[in-house]
């Protein structure tokens, strides 16, 4: 009796294993793809993570990679230093404000554009708008910075010259240097650059909605706005939630439009510094320019921890409230 069960047990296990192997073989192409991604993450995301050790040590670059392990432990010294920095409040505020502004404005923008586009009946016009709106995505920020200077510089900027010439303003607008303009300019340019790109996803979501729903609604007397509200919008909800979670996870980098660092780095200067210095640029400066890798690692680690907390909590909230979530 005992023996019998054991025998069936093992055969069951081997059978299961054989089946697993069979399934695996069937999906081998897919596994190959996943495997590549895993290797990528392992090499470029997980392996370098041992560098985090630096944040708790007095590391000097001249000791090389080995120095990461051999240098002296200093505990939370670097973290304390950052919290006590005279600019700490300002830098954190700038990072948060810029990130929140981007989520607030850049997240709904592609959704609205997608809904608007889906209502356009003229296919040619629709395609034209779509192309024009997603093209800026392919311009690098460095180029955007150059263009911005040519347009907005107080002295040689085209926009300022035109406005002055038309008599609409009597003093050139110092968009690029005045600290009061930085947040607005950064948010606006990010929306302009990435809106069309993200619209593609939402358009795809809308395309997946069964057309018969619209027909039925129309017969029942639903107007255009009612159709958007009761059919288009609920149909996009899953996509919206997923994109929102991804956005919140990368919120400190600028959310789905990203580019907090690029903007602060390229458009930041010593005049608008009070609003343009963010955690990433600060870490970059102290790390690479001053060569204080430990301190920079500590600063970045704080930011990563905040990001991890944000992504887990937003995922949890999404799961509780809407039922769809990332994991």
């Amino acid at each position, binding site marked *: 009796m005992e023996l019998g069960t054991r025998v069936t047990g093992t055969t069951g296990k081997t059978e299961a294993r054989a089946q697993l192997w069979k399934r695996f073989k069937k999906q081998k192409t897919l596994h190959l793809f996943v495997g590549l991604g895993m290797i990528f993450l392992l090499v*470029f995301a997980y392996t370098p993570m041992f560098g985090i050790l630096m944040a708790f040590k007095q590391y*000097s*670059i*001249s*000791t*090389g990679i080995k120095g990461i392990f051999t240098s002296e432990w200093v505990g939370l010294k670097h973290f304390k230093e950052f919290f006590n*920095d*005279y*600019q700490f409040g300002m830098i954190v505020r700038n990072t948060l404000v810029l990130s929140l502004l981007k989520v607030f404005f850049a997240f709904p923008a592609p959704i609205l554009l997608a809904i608007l586009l889906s209502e356009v009946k003229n296919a040619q016009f629709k395609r034209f708008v779509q192309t024009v709106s997603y093209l800026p995505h392919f311009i*690098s920020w460095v180029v955007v910075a150059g263009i911005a200077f040519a347009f907005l*510089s*107080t*002295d040689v900027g085209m926009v300022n010259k035109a406005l002055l010439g038309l008599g609409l303003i009597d003093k050139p607008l*110092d968009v*690029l*240097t005045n600290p009061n303009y930085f947040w607005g300019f950064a948010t606006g340019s990010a929306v302009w650059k990435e809106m069309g*790109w*993200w619209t*593609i*996803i939402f358009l*795809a*979501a809308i395309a*997946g909605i069964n057309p018969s729903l619209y027909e039925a609604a129309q017969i029942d007397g639903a107007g255009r706005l009612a159709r958007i509200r009761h059919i288009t919008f609920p149909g996009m909800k*899953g*996509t919206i939630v*997923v*994109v929102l979670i*991804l956005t919140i996870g990368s919120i400190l980098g600028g959310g789905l439009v*990203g580019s907090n660092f690029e903007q602060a780095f390229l458009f930041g*200067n*010593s*005049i*608008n*510094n*009070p609003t343009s*210095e963010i955690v990433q640029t600060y870490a970059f*400066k102290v790390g*690479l*320019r*001053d*060569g*204080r*890798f430990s301190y920079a690692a500590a600063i970045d680690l704080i930011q990563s921890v905040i990001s991890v907390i944000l992504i887990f909590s937003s995922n949890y909230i999404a799961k509780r409230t809407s039922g769809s979530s990332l994991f």
Partner: protein
Amino acid sequence: MNRNKGKKALLLSLILMMTIALMSACGGNNNNDGQKENAGAANPSETSSEPPAKNNEVKELSLFIDASWYPVKEWKGSVAEKITEKTGIKLKVTVATDDKQLPLMIASGDLPDLVFTYANIDRMSDSKLSYPWNELIEKYAPDFKIDPTRIAIHTMDDGNFYTVRNSFATQEEMAQNKYSLGSDGNPGIAVREDILKELGNPPIDTIDNFVKVLGMVKQKYPDMVPLIMDKDWIEQYFLQQFGVEGLLDGWYERDGKVDYAIRQPEMLEFFKFMNRLYREGDILAENFAYTNDQIDDQYATSGKAFAHSHTVSIADMDNIKVKNAGGSYTFQMLPSAISKNAKAVSSGLGFAGTFITKKNKDPEASIKFLQYLASDEGKKLTMFGVEGEHWTWNDEGYPNLKYDPSDADFVNTNGIKWWYLYNDGVTEGMLSYVPGAQKTKALMEKKEFTVYKPELGLIQLQPDSEEKTIKTKIDEMIKNEKVKIYLAKSEEEAVANYETMVKNAEKIGLDRLVDWANQTYQKKKDLFNK
């Protein structure tokens, strides 16, 4: 339902793909940058144990110049050729794209054979990165003699010296050579001669009068910028006029005690003045945001600016450019002193130095190369050009130059001066002695009111020390805060911002830094009092 699920999966994967595309686009760029940098820098793994070449064989060493503005980018021109002929060494030159490139190269270990830097002398003076010159000299070039003051200045705490800066001369050396005037690296302001004439040649003999003239320009030519400043030469000229002894990130000495420059009593007057310039509309706010040192030149040479702040050679340089472009106006230098308080303290230990890195494939050839540059012949060759072709020696004690040293195009294409990987302030100072040139006059005036305090320059911080961190943080803070003072809306606001800046510095640890500086100063000042 099933169909919807499939759609959902499709959508999800689309989202992921787009996110990855977004990220990998950035990643891709980074990789490319890295590769470019590597390609530009040396190839350190290559032939590290190459046997010393024979005399007639030209050897190539790689050189990284840590100065993005460097005017010569390639080892060519008659001076470079002559040096190669004399030493059998050719340099493969890479000029930095920005000030972070060398720190990055140090971090990644991709150092070339030689590094020429001024901003990272502390960091490169490290036995893990560079060969000490004293060891190499002892081993390969025992007849390479360097005077004891220069060695003392550059000796680090470990007892080694890793470089010797160029452009340095002691007070005695300068006094002995009356034709040695100092380098181009002295501040100066050029103004438009024609406009000055149209305004009736008002005198510019005080700071107030200068501001008055700027105001007149603004009134008469509202489209013109009264004063445009090179991004690296904004403060220096005016600091000297107010008698501030040093730059914003330097030290000053009074009654045997040193303190940080921002706490000098004269400093507040300087800041009030700069703020006044801004409030009266004589300078552009944008000027403080320039990241490119060509913008000011364009203003000046395209006739859009009245005064141009740069170095003592700026009038000569602008005039040549204007003339080449077919313009008809000329610039003239303001006197080096337009104030009774004018004072220049030379605490300089020189400008930049060459390091022989640990990745160097031939340290012997490298030190011998520097030894040649340090010889009298080598110094004159790099500084003046090829003897006979470019200059002849005047028995008075200076070279009769056959070209105009302010003609940047000629100087750069021939490689004159800029290969001064080793040189000294006396030889360099003679290049400025061109009877009749505006620069010569400005520098002679400047020599009059220059005080030498090289012992201040010896307050040098060791890399990775606590004090170094404090100083870096204070300097960075000053860089941010000073603009707020310059661009304040009223004088009261400027003064308040100045006080905030000093308070911030104290919060970061200024007092501790000053204590340390005083200790170092007391220890090291005897080097010069022998």
